[in-house]
């Protein structure tokens, strides 16, 4: 019987997800054994045309990483949705926007302005901006359109499964690969796979006490006690509002969780939930004092929606 066909694509992403796949190390060969990889720009030379030529549903599994930031990203998303039986939003970008979606705190035009005109190192006297179509001696050259809003994959096409993480942890990737390869019945569509049901805290070895926060601190302001819960020490750790699955890597390395595995099941908006939780345990009933404590958290959007802005309820900063 023929091997199931696998496609891997990167849209607006950093490539970290690809690296994560390579981090399967020798297991990567078994992926190759188990699947017939038909499309993987980072590793194979396959043209878009070849992809477009494939028949609908001809790809068994597509691991799609990266956010939807441009017409090209969206075009490929639609193609792959059509050609793939199972489309997986792979990694935080495809899952919920991730770092690229922080572009939603401003506008496309601001970004272009800064990048092509305002940065000191840029020499661009007549303020040229990238144009969709440019006439060159060689002829008409087309660039993809940069969208004003960065989206998660499921905000453009229907997604079958989500594999969270920035990047997904190799052992989790392997679980997914095994799951699909085994041909075992898959969980209900729309489910998050390759992750746990509870939160990062579950995997965090630090000891936790009752929370009573009188002051928030930033990493450079303290030397954190290696054994105690970082939140108990005033560091804003998103662990409590983040799905388990990564093995609490950051907290174990002394860095507060930043939430890349996204909201746990049953939580709709990771940032709002975390804010609610933190505010609940601020140890004051005085409006002014509460305000002062809260003001110790700079950049709430960047802090609480670092990975999930595109997927959040408000999705982007209002212009």
């Amino acid at each position, binding site marked *: 019987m023929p091997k199931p066909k696998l496609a891997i694509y990167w849209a607006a992403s950093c490539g970290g997800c690809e690296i994560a796949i390579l981090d399967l190390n020798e297991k990567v060969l078994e992926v190759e054994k188990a699947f017939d990889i038909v499309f993987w720009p980072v590793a194979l030379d396959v043209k878009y045309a070849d992809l477009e030529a494939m028949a609908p549903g001809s790809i068994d599994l597509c691991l799609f990483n990266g956010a939807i930031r441009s017409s090209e990203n969206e075009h490929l998303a639609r193609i792959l949705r059509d050609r793939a039986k199972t489309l997986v939003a792979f990694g935080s970008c495809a899952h919920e926007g991730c770092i690229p979606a922080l572009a939603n705190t401003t506008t496309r035009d601001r970004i272009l302005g800064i990048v092509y005109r305002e940065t000191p190192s840029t020499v661009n006297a007549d303020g040229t901006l990238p144009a969709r179509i*440019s006439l060159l001696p060689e002829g008409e050259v087309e660039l993809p359109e940069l969208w004003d809003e960065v989206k998660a994959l499921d905000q453009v096409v229907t997604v079958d499964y989500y594999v969270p993480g920035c990047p997904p942890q190799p052992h989790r990737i392997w679980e997914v690969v095994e799951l699909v390869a085994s041909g075992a019945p898959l969980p209900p569509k729309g489910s998050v796979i390759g992750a746990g049901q509870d939160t990062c805290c579950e995997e965090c070895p630090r000891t936790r006490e009752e929370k009573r926060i009188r002051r928030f601190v930033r990493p450079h302001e303290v030397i954190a006690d290696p054994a105690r819960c970082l939140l108990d020490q005033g560091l804003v750790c998103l662990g409590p509002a983040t799905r388990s699955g990564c093995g609490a890597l950051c907290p174990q390395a002394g860095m507060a969780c930043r939430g890349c595995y996204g909201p746990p099941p049953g939580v709709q908006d990771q940032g709002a*939930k975390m804010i*609610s939780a933190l505010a609940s345990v601020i140890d004051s*009933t005085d409006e002014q004092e509460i305000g002062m404590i*809260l003001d110790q958290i700079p*950049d709430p959007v960047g802090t609480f929606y670092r990975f999930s802005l595109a997927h*959040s309820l408000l999705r982007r*900063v209002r212009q």
Partner: protein
Amino acid sequence: MTETRFEPRIVAFLCNWCAYSGADLAGVSRIPSSPCVRAIRVMCTGRIDPGFVLHAFASGADAVLLAGCHPGDCHYSEGNYKCLRRALALRRLLRAFGVEEDRVRLEWISASEAEKFAQVTREMEEAVRRLGPLRLNGGAGPTEGESKESGRAEA
């Protein structure tokens, strides 16, 4: 739903013991309030999750009212303080999201303050009419129109 004339949509989260009873008393006393304000009853303002407010905005609300017992009066001792803290945190978040402060209002309204409740609803309607509808750019899909904006460049 496309409005010919702008009709503000204001969601009010009222605690069962004080604000909701106050709103009822406004009814019993026939004190006119704004029809734009529509109540959702919770047992305590302490139940209000900032997510509710964001969800309301995302679903088309132009403003949100949170109302509960006066400090010290909470039927559950301190739920209203939790609400106060969350509201203050939420306010900071919304500021960062570019949403005007007047779109979220926290009020302590006792079961006997019918007049105050009605007053607050009327004020909020006026405030929202001044601000106009809350258009969250997040709502719109990929805007194809943008392609027209960028012209052609000759080389």
